[in-house]
């Protein structure tokens, strides 16, 4: 395609500007985290003596191992189970299309725009009655339900695109529904599954509201919820807070960078069919 020099220059300049705006807050956070604890450093100034020890202090102050462990447990409780049940439902609604599939799907879609805050009050009392408040289950179980509208829609959108001939061929070869699902469709769904898995991993890690409302102890919370507690406790010590924030957000960056090719390419293929 023909691209004029001016267009190219303008486009590059725009991109670089946007990237700078995106990255500068991260750099500012990092630089601030290296200043003397208890000070109010200004701007992007590199400290005379970088206090790398802030990271160690923040790690200990937040009891980071316990927080990481808690988040890992919550992730393990949410992501695999959510993937499994959403795939089953998406396969059924998108491919098998049993009687009433439209209504069932519509009921799921109904929850798509539902903000978590709209149901947080009854959810609290429900969890209290189940005696699950302050446990990780109080985060895991509601998330399984709350992810379903998006996850079922995502998987259904994938299965709708699968040609019916594929299943017909498998059926002629004698495959029943279960075999059709596990042998033919699950292997073909890997890209859709992995991007949904990464999305749900990030959403769970970053889940704040449920953690704040339903779990008091930061050591039973998600990472984002724990960061909220950390801010409450150490909010006045800016460098320490910045160091803690960096520690807590770094795993999300690592996961994203590790899987980004998959993730972005899934986006590019238009897997997002909202």
């Amino acid at each position, binding site marked *: 395609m023909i691209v004029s020099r001016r267009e190219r220059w303008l486009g590059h300049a725009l991109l670089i500007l946007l990237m700078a705006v995106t990255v500068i807050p991260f750099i500012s956070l990092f630089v601030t985290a290296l200043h003397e604890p208890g000070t109010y450093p200004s701007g992007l100034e590199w400290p005379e003596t970088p206090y790398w020890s802030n990271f160690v202090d923040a790690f200990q102050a937040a009891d980071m191992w316990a927080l990481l462990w808690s988040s890992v447990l919550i992730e393990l409780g949410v992501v695999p189970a959510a993937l499994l049940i959403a795939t089953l439902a998406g396969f059924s609604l998108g491919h098998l299309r049993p009687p009433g599939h439209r209504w069932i799907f519509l009921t799921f879609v109904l929850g798509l725009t539902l903000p978590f805050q709209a149901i947080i009050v009854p959810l609290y009392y429900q969890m209290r009655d189940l005696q699950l408040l302050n446990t990780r289950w109080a985060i895991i179980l509601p998330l399984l339900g709350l992810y379903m509208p998006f996850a079922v829609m995502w998987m259904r959108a994938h299965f709708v695109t699968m040609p019916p001939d594929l299943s017909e061929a498998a059926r002629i070869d004698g495959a029943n529904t279960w075999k059709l699902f596990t042998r033919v469709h699950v292997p073909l769904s890997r890209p859709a599954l992995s991007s949904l898995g990464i999305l749900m991993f990030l959403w769970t890690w970053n889940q704040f509201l449920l953690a704040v*409302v339903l779990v008091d102890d930061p050591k039973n919370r998600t990472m*984002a919820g724990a960061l909220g507690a950390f801010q409450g406790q150490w909010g006045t010590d800016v460098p320490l807070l910045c160091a803690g924030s960096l520690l807590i957000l770094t795993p999300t960056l690592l996961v994203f960078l590790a899987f980004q090719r998959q993730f972005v390419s899934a986006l590019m293929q238009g897997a997002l069919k909202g």
Partner: protein
Amino acid sequence: MNEMRTTGAPGRREVAAPASTSLEARRRALKARRLRRGWAALGLVVPAAFFYVIFVLRPLVLTVQYSFYDWNGVGASTFVGAENYTRLVEKPELLGSIVNALELIIYFSFVPVILGLLTAATIRKFAASRLALVSRTVLFLPQVIPLVAAGIMWTWLLATDGLVNELMRLVGLGSITRAWLGDTSTALGAVGVIGAWVALGLCLLLLLSGMTKIDPALYEAARIDGAGAVREFFAITLPSVRQEIGVCVTVTVIAALAAFDIVYISTQGGPANSTLVPGLEIYYLGFFSREVGQASALAVVFMVLVLAVVLPIQRLTKEED
């Protein structure tokens, strides 16, 4: 209904087409098989539906029920009819939170979608260049970090001695510097900047992915017809990414109306309720002042508001198929 379903499986109709003596029997067997598969298929939906019903639909119904009662969460509750709803209009604090949420749409949604559109249209042609590939990663970073962390970062950037003010002093705008999040006239906009920063990458990438799917021949034809870049944008690019725009607007509008994390961290709804949003107010009412009924009434209105804003967007951008 039935006919529409059979068109989904063209092979099957051919089976039933040749008229023979066993036609009736074959049709019955087919029907039975379809029914059996139907039940098996419905069974696959059950696990997802279970969690959805217990942890989403049930609380949803309860929210509506609570909204008609006066309850402090512990003692007995009394039925008060629509009183919680009338108070929504009477109390400026409650109504104000809804107005604030609507205003946040400008920052959380319009700004990133428009900026994303313009940028994507500019970089579309070299979407495969190395810089563009790097930008895909970089611009996505705000989406993957916790909003809480974004809130902490920006609270510091927007503080009195923060980087934003420092830059403004550098370019001679020192006279308007202030604690952006602490001033009643700028706090909501400052919160909006944080939201725009978070959403921009997502919008840009989605729109760009839509634009790379456009047939290049369309642009070549337009060029031959003498269309400029602006005509091209409005005649080809914009209509082609209608669906992606729909996704972006929907996602960001919901994020604006349901804002919680960023506001909780950066302003807690202050100063003087200038950044109070329904999500936060529900939290305060439900868990601090223990006005469960009032919190629920706000939640119901909040839900209806989200639907009232999002459904028209969906209808506008849905492709006719």
